[in-house]
C-alpha cells in the first residue's frame, strides 16, 4: 500500500503527502538535544565558569558590589533554569509568544502588576549588586527626617533637622522634609528609599528560587507520582506527607538559633519543606489528565512517556500549578517579612524588619512613613503575586485568552 508512492512510478498529484513518506528511512525521534536542554547546559557551564572566576580573582565582589554567598549561587542557578525553561521556549515558539502578548495587551491590570513585580525584582537585584550591603553602610545620622511633603516635631529628629525648621524654641515645632531624603529616614538615619531597595532583596531570592527550583521540583514529583503510580507514587507521597508534617518555620527557627540568620538557611528550610502542597495538587491533576483521550492518543502513536508528561500533562496542569506557585510566593514573602518583623531576620534589612523598627521605636502615628512605606510595598507585592498568579493561568490557557 505504501509501495505505490515509494517506487516513484505511480506518483501523481493525488498521492497523499503522507503516502510519500518512506518510513524505512526514518528512525525514532532523536530529539534529545532540545533548545531548552542546550540552553540549560550552556547556562550551567557559564555558572561553573563564573564560580571558578570568582574563586580565582582577588575580590570579595563578583561584580560591582555583589558579595556572593550560597544564597546567591542558588539564585544564579535558579535563574539559569528559568531562562532555559521559561524564556527559551517562549523565544522559540513565536506564535505562542505573539498570542500571549496579544492577550496581555487587553489585560491592563495584569500588565500593571507584572510590571510592578518586574520592578521589585530589578530594584532588589540592584540592591544586591549595586552598592555594598544594600546601600546601608554609611549612616547619615539624620534621624527621623520626614518625607519631602511632610513634617515632624523637631524633637524627634534628635535636634538634627536637615531641612527647614519653624522658628522658635518649642521642641515640637515642625521640621520640614527635604529632597535629600525624599521619603524621609528611619530612627537610625537610614534613607527610606535605601531601606525600600534593600527590602526588595529577599523578594528576589524567594521569587527566583521558588520559580526556578522549588516549583519545578514539586511539579516533577507530582507528575511522576501521578503518572507512573504504583510504588513510586507511594514512596514520593510518603516523602511529601513527612515534609508536610514538619513545619518549615520551626526548622528555620531552630537553625536560626545555631547558625544565625541567613538567606540560604531560609531558602533551604522552605525550599526543602514547603513544596509538598504543590506536589499533591500536581499529582491529583495528573491523575485526571492521564485519563484524557489526548494522552491515550499520544501513547498509541508511541510518544515516550517523558514527552507525554512534558507536552501533554504539564501544560494542562498549569491551570492549578501557576496560581498555587504564586500563592506559595506570596506566603513565603509574607513569612520572611513576619520572621524579620519578629527579629528573626534572614538578611540585614527587609521590609518586615523596617516595619518593626518604625512601629516599636518612635511614636508610630507621627513617624508613620517608617512603617507605612515598607508595609505598602509588601502589601502591593503580595497582592501582585495573587493577581498575577490568577491572571497568568487565564492568559496561558488558549480557551480563556480570547
Amino acid at each position, binding site marked *: *500500500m505504501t509501495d505505490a508512492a515509494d517506487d516513484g512510478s505511480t506518483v501523481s498529484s493525488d498521492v497523499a503527502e*503522507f503516502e510519500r*513518506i518512506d*518510513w524505512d528511512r526514518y528512525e525514532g*525521534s532523536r530529539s534529545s538535544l532540545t533548545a531548552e536542554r542546550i540552553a540549560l547546559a550552556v547556562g550551567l557551564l557559564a555558572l561553573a565558569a563564573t564560580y571558578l572566576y570568582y574563586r580565582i580573582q582577588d575580590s570579595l565582589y563578583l561584580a560591582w558590589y555583589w558579595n556572593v554567598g550560597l544564597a546567591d549561587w542558588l539564585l544564579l542557578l535558579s535563574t539559569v533554569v528559568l531562562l532555559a525553561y521559561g524564556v527559551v521556549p517562549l523565544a522559540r515558539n513565536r506564535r505562542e509568544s505573539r498570542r500571549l502578548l496579544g492577550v496581555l495587551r487587553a489585560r491592563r491590570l495584569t500588565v500593571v502588576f507584572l510590571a510592578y513585580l518586574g520592578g521589585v525584582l530589578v530594584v532588589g537585584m540592584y540592591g544586591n549588586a549595586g552598592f555594598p550591603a544594600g546601600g546601608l553602610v554609611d549612616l547619615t545620622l539624620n534621624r527621623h527626617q520626614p518625607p519631602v511633603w511632610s513634617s515632624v516635631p523637631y524633637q524627634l529628629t534628635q535636634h538634627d533637622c536637615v531641612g527647614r525648621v519653624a522658628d522658635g524654641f518649642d521642641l515640637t515645632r515642625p521640621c520640614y522634609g527635604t529632597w535629600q531624603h525624599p521619603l524621609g529616614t528611619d530612627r537610625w538615619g537610614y534613607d527610606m528609599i535605601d531601606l525600600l531597595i534593600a527590602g526588595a532583596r529577599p523578594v528576589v531570592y524567594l521569587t527566583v528560587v521558588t520559580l526556578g527550583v522549588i516549583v519545578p521540583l514539586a511539579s516533577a514529583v507530582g507528575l511522576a507520582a501521578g503518572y507512573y503510580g504504583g510504588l513510586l507514587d507511594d514512596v514520593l507521597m510518603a516523602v511529601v506527607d513527612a515534609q508536610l508534617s514538619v513545619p518549615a518555620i520551626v526548622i528555620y527557627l531552630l537553625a536560626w538559633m545555631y547558625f544565625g540568620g541567613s538567606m540560604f538557611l531560609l531558602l533551604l528550610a522552605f525550599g526543602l519543606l514547603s513544596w509538598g502542597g504543590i506536589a499533591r495538587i500536581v499529582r491529583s491533576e495528573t491523575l485526571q489528565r492521564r485519563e*484524557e483521550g*489526548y494522552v491515550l*492518543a499520544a501513547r*498509541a502513536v508511541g510518544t515516550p512517556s517523558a514527552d507525554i508528561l512534558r507536552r501533554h500533562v504539564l501544560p494542562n496542569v498549569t491551570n492549578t500549578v501557576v496560581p498555587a506557585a504564586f500563592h506559595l510566593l506570596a506566603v513565603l514573602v509574607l513569612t520572611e517579612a513576619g520572621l524579620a518583623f519578629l527579629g528573626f531576620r534572614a538578611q540585614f534589612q527587609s521590609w518586615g524588619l523596617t516595619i518593626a523598627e518604625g512601629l516599636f521605636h518612635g511614636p508610630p502615628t507621627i513617624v508613620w512613613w517608617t512603617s507605612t512605606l515598607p508595609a505598602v510595598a509588601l502589601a502591593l507585592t503580595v497582592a501582585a503575586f495573587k493577581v498575577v498568579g490568577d491572571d497568568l493561568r487565564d492568559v496561558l490557557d488558549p480557551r480563556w485568552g480570547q
Partner: protein
Amino acid sequence: MTVTDLDTDSEPLLSVRDLEKYYPITEGFLRREVGRVRAVDGVSFDVYPSETFGIVGESGCGKSTTALSIFRLEEPTSGEIRFDGEDVLAYDDDELRAFRRRTQLVLQDPDSAFNPRLTVGDAIAEPLRVHGLDDPEHRRRVVEDALERVGLEAADADGYPHEFSGGEKQRMGLARALVLNPDLIVADEPTSALDGRTKAEVLELMADLEREYGVAIVLISHDVDLVRRFCDRVAVMYLGKIVERGPTEAVFDEPQHPYTRVLLSSVPSLDPNAPTANTRTGVGSDEFPDASDLPSGCRFHPRCPAIVQPTDVELPREQWLSVVRLRRHLADDWVDADALWASLADEGDGTANGTLDLRRSFDLPETLADPDVDTAVSDAVASIEAGDLEGARTRLADTLESVCERESPPLSEFEHASRPVACHRYDPDLPGEPETGIDVRSLED
C-alpha cells in the same frame, strides 16, 4: 486499491487468539488480590488487510479493553496477538515503535482527544515528530494535505481544538490517524459523541479513507446499525467473550446467539406502535452483571430468553419461562422477604401475600405439569414466607438448574450453526433445540 470482498485465503493482518485481560481487585497496604475483573476473557478473531471488522456489544462488555490490549496500551494478561505474522507481545522497543506507526487509534470523545494547549497542526504533526520526521516544513506539508483529505482546510492547522465542532474534531482525529499511513485503524465508538448528520458524514469519510488508502478498520461500537452499515464482518461481544462471529449480513439477518437477538431487538424501531424490548424492572433481563462478579456457566444465562430447559424438567415452554422469571426475580438483591413482596405488590398484582398470589404474579398455574417442579415452587414459596430467601433460591436451583448455569459454552462451529457461536443450544451433546425462532420478548412481559 479497493478491496471490498473479503479474501479469506490471504494472511490475516491482525490475529488475536484467546486474549485475556484481567484487572486485579486489591485490598490493603500489601495490595493482596481479592478478586479479578475479567474485562476480556478469551477473545479470538482475525482482521484481514483492507477489511472493516466490527466489534459490537453493550458498554462495559470489554470491547474497548480489547482494543487497548491489542495495542499493548493495556498489557494483556494472556493470549496471542499477531500483526502481519509477528508476535506483538514479543516486540522489542524498536519493533513496538514500528507497530505503533502501522496501527492507529481513533477515540470516542473528540473533545478529549485533542490537547487543548496544542494547536491542531501540532497535534496532528505529533505522530510524525515522534517517528522521526524532524523537518518542521515537511511535517507542516503532510498535516495540511491530511487536513484537506479529511474535508477540512489547511489553515485549520493554526487553530486550537476548542474552536472546532465535535464533527470537525473527529475528522482531525482521522487526519491524525492517517498521517502515519497506517495499515490498521481501530476506531473506538468514533461517532457516538456526534449527532445524526455529522455521524453519517464521519462514517462516510471513514469508508472513503478505507477505500482510498486500503487501511483495515476495526470499528468498535454499541450501535448495531452503525456496524451493520459499515462493517464486512462482525463479532458480537458480551461480558468479555465473543458470543457470535461472522459476516455482518449473516449475523444480523439471521442472528444465532440469543444475545445477538436481544441486541438487535434493542435497536429502536421507527414504528411507534411496535412493541419495544424495554423490560419491566425487577424481571432481571435488563440488568447488566457486574464484571467482577460474573455469572456461572454461560455469562448470558441470567438475561437469556432461550435458557435451555433441563431434560428431566417436563414443563410446557410457557411454564418453564415463567419459572425462570420467578427465579430471576428471586435472584435480585432483596434486603429481606418483605422487600420482595413489596416489589410484587408494586407491580399491581394485588396484595401479594400468599402462595396463590406469588404464583399468579408469575403466571404460574396452581398446579404445574411437572410434580417435582411444583413441589419445588411450593417449598420455595414456603421459604419466602418464612423469610428465608436464600433457602428458596437453593431449593429452586436444585430442581431447575439449567446447563447454561453450569457450563460456559465455547465459541465453536456447531453442526447447526453456520458460523462460530457460543451457545449450548447448538451443542448436539446437550439438550435443547437450536430454536432459531425464539421470541426475545418471551421473557419480557
